[in-house]
């Protein structure tokens, strides 16, 4: 109990909340199992095939499935927030020295940290079963690119947690999760979509998350457009999140 600065409190609250999130085994299995199984299935089907642009199909799918699992984990933070709000824990927190901004940052950090199992396990499966061969630097760069690209989804989790209630947060999360995954081309390549759907796909953050990951894994550097779109989504969702948080505080 020595460090009492807001930064120390934010870190402490983020760590405790992350530990609690990791206690929820059911949630971890769900966000990891489906993308991992799908990846293993695809990896067997498409092993050794080339996707063009210096990318194997398996590496392409590895990035897609890791993104898919991570988006689910990040968005799921919203469910926990909604439960904590319902039991009145957020009122109790407002009676602590933790400022509201620190609380939001801590919850976003939690979202980022709970994505790690899906990211690491799908990549591990890629390296072993999938036979994806990358240099250590490329693995790190790809992992980091996908992980940092998840920031807008972490913020989206907060928005859902403050906009929804315990009853609505599950369906909202599910629809957002599956909607973004499918529309963003994580399940099927966007090129297979009809023209108008392709246009819509390019508005989603999930499309650009996958684009970021695939470009980096193909060793073609960091795509500026993807970074800008993801940053734009982060700003917009951040503003909505702060608004939803303030609004949730005046209710109860």
């Amino acid at each position, binding site marked *: 109990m020595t460090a009492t600065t807001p930064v120390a409190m934010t870190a402490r609250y983020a760590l405790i909340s992350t530990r609690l999130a990791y206690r*929820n085994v059911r949630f971890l299995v769900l966000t990891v199992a489906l993308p991992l199984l799908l990846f293993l299935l695809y990896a067997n089907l498409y092993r050794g095939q080339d996707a063009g642009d210096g990318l194997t199909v398996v590496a392409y799918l590895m990035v897609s499935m890791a993104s898919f699992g991570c988006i689910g984990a990040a968005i799921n933070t919203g469910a926990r927030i909604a439960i904590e709000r319902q039991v*009145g824990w957020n009122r*109790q927190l407002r009676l602590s*020295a933790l400022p509201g901004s620190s609380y939001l940052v801590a919850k976003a950090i939690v979202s980022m940290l709970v994505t790690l199992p899906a990211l690491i396990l799908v990549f591990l499966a890629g390296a072993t079963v999938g036979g994806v061969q990358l240099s250590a630097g490329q693995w790190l760069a790809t992992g980091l690119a996908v992980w940092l690209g998840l920031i807008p989804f972490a913020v989206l989790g907060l928005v859902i947690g403050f906009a929804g209630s315990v009853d609505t947060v599950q369906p909202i999360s599910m629809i957002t999760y599956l909607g973004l995954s499918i529309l963003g081309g994580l399940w099927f390549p966007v090129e297979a979509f009809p023209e108008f759907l392709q246009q819509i796909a390019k508005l989603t953050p999930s499309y650009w998350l996958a684009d970021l990951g695939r470009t980096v894994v193909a060793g073609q550097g960091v795509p500026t457009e993807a970074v800008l779109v993801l940053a734009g989504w982060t700003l917009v969702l951040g503003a909505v999140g702060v608004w939803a948080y303030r609004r949730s505080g005046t209710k109860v």
Partner: protein
Amino acid sequence: MTTKPIPGPDGAAVRLTGLHKRFGPVHAVRGVDLLIVPGEVVAFLGPNGAGKSTTIDILLGLTRPDAGSVRLFGTDPVTAVQSGRVGAMLQAGALLPDVTVKELVTMFAGLHRHPMPVGTAMELAGVTDIAGRRTQKLSGGQAQRVRFALALVPDPDLLVLDEPTAAMDVEVRRSFWSSMREFTATGRTVLFATHYLQEADQFADRVVVLAGGAVVADGTGAQIKSSVAGRTISAVIDAATADDLARLPGVLGLDRQAGRILLHCNDSDIALRALLAGFPQAHDIEIAAGNLEDAFLELIATSRQDIEQ
């Protein structure tokens, strides 16, 4: 950021001025003024819907008043809370699921600037024996004690308790108040809301009666008792309905006790004449001087008439 705010120039622990709050058509708080000096133990007494919880929420900075101002130790509530000078026990809820009692108290201590040792807070609140239990497995009374530990752990100068004994049985309630006494002996300021008159009378230096969103009386338990001329008529009245008796002139409320009817009156003379005229079968009649219960009922009844007029 780390320096303690200086107490207000008037040295007040709590200063509420002209508070008003509406929720749609409900005028929950209508003009509450209150000054509490450091070291006072004050009870907020009132029936459900009197505005106790809303006033407490405003005092803690959880709800914004439509009008009026709150100063705690000379600063705004959020500053006072963030500097760790205020600990509060909210009504119901407020326990994080999936953690043990000890983890919860430790975590909350970690979110304050100068907390007391977790062990001390848990001992004071009497939750040491359930330290390893998950929060969702607690009984109502145990959960209340954990909330009390959360209120104590910031090591606050002002403790605010919203109906602290609501879910407790008699024995737990007794031990709760004895740990409260330990805490107030150290000179802290306490404000607690209750609708138990006995609690207000026994544990508070000062009782502030709230009805219809306004303060209708403010003083020691004894002062409030003597300020109203309440008396109780007690009698055995066979074959009389409670409704008929409660409607007698001069009667504010009614209780049954061991076969006897207790009529709480603001004018026992008128009530007695009406009782004898209407229910000649009444016998074994006794008239007793008022207690706090009668005073309370009369205050509420009077304030209700004021509001209706």
